[in-house]
């Protein structure tokens, strides 16, 4: 496929007085599993918001499926970093998953039986079927994260954007989320944002480093110079394909 799924050219984003993204270029092709790493405050979430069409550009262009992002939201699934919500909110796991159908339903319509089926299938995919009728407030951090992924799957996306899906879960759950993404990458293009530089390289096909500016590694390799440029502090560098072997640690 020649047409890129996501194409960002010279994107600059200014929030308040700070330049959060500065001349960022990014191309994502169909079937990619792109990992975007970078320090906190490096603009990773902002970049996702640009792709979602939630963040206006000061300059530059962004095209998703060849169109402005706001026109293709139906084809993009989004998993936010964390859900800020009231744990006593009266809503069930299934109702949250159903929100993924909002894009496919018009105003005034109600969720149908097939919407419910799609939601239940997604809950099964992430292993939450058992909890479908439960209150969301009772879920653990990892269960909540998987529910957010299910909600994104319910929208039947061709492109899945995940913001730090493993930031607030325990190591065991982290593995199960990456296993899930390994399965999903057969079916859709994935962009994953994380500062979890250790594990990610085993799963993704490409890595990009982002700290206001972006360096992309088509081979899936990160070199020292780039990383030191991106991070103001020492980091471990890992080699792709060789799980977890540190080239050099500080």
């Amino acid at each position: 496929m020649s047409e890129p799924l996501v194409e960002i050219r010279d994107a600059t984003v200014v929030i308040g007085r700070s330049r959060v993204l500065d001349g960022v270029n990014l191309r994502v092709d169909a079937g990619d599993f792109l990992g975007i790493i970078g320090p906190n405050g490096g603009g990773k979430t902002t970049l996702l918001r640009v792709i979602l069409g939630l963040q206006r550009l000061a300059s530059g262009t962004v095209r998703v499926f060849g169109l402005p992002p706001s026109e293709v939201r139906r084809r993009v699934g989004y998993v936010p970093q964390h859900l800020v919500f009231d744990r006593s909110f009266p809503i069930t796991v299934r109702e949250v998953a159903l929100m993924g159908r909002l894009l496919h339903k018009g105003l005034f319509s109600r969720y149908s039986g097939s919407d419910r089926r799609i939601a239940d299938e997604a809950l099964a995919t992430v292993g939450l079927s058992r909890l479908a009728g439960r209150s969301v407030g009772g879920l653990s951090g990892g269960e909540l994260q998987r529910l957010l992924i299910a909600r994104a799957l319910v929208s039947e996306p061709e492109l899945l954007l995940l913001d730090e899906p493993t930031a607030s879960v325990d190591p065991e759950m982290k593995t199960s989320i990456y296993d899930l993404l390994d399965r999903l990458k057969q079916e859709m293009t994935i962009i994953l944002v994380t500062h979890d530089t250790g594990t990610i390289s085993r799963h993704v096909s490409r890595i990009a480093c982002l700290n206001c500016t972006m360096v992309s590694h088509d081979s899936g390799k990160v070199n020292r110079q780039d990383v030191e440029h991106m991070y103001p502090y020492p980091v471990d560098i890992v080699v792709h394909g060789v799980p977890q072997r540190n080239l050099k640690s500080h």
Partner: protein
Amino acid sequence: MMEILHYEFMRNAIAAALLASLACGIIGSYVVVKKIGFISGGIAHSAFGGIGLGYFLGINPLVGLIPFSLLAAAGIGLLSKKAKVAEDTSIGTFWAAGMALGVLFIGLTPGYAPDLFSYLFGNILTVPRSDLLLILGLDIGIVATVLLLYKEFLALSFDEEYAEVSGLKTTLLYLLLLCLIALTVVILVRVAGIVMVVALLTIPAAIARRYTRTLSGMMGLATVLCALFTLGGLWISWLTDVPSGASIILLASAVFLAVHGKAFFGGGELAGRG
């Protein structure tokens, strides 16, 4: 006990209580889950300007209340969403300015303002038939809007960012919700008065949330609770000859404190039931 039904004002009061409970339970649930009780209080108080305008123009103050409360809702919503003013600041401004306008209009109206007290503190025993029809009409509008936009309002209340990603016009929906709150305030003014409506918008729904797992269930239980509080308060007011607005609010508050106090002293958790 049945003899009280012989009086028309009592039958009207009961009808008003039941009709008001419907709007109160449904919209109150949104007020509680979205935590906009203070906004609702601001809308209610600033709507006092509409009461004053009604007196000034010599029309039914409830009719003056409708456009005024809608304007207050839109004003508070837009100011806090668009103008980079802290929400509580814009609420406080509208709250005081609306009341000041009300006082100004009443001051400009020659003579004496009858029933002013009942708009401020409620008097369900003086609801005329014409107001019942107005309340019924507003009820129908509110219920129809919520039925049509249930999933949108649910998404807005639970996760506003995702609602926006899903292509919903969240600012518009939020303003619409504030307008529904404004109309509910109009309905409740006769029951509890401008000063105390916020209690009816929050207490029944807050208690209902503890015992329900879905928003629709919460709305149903809150409606029942609101009906119990208003009818119970009305009954107490009838027996003891105290102002009905006060007896309704005090009954609701007492139950609220009993329910939450029990959880507090019993060590039970208030949130996050499985």
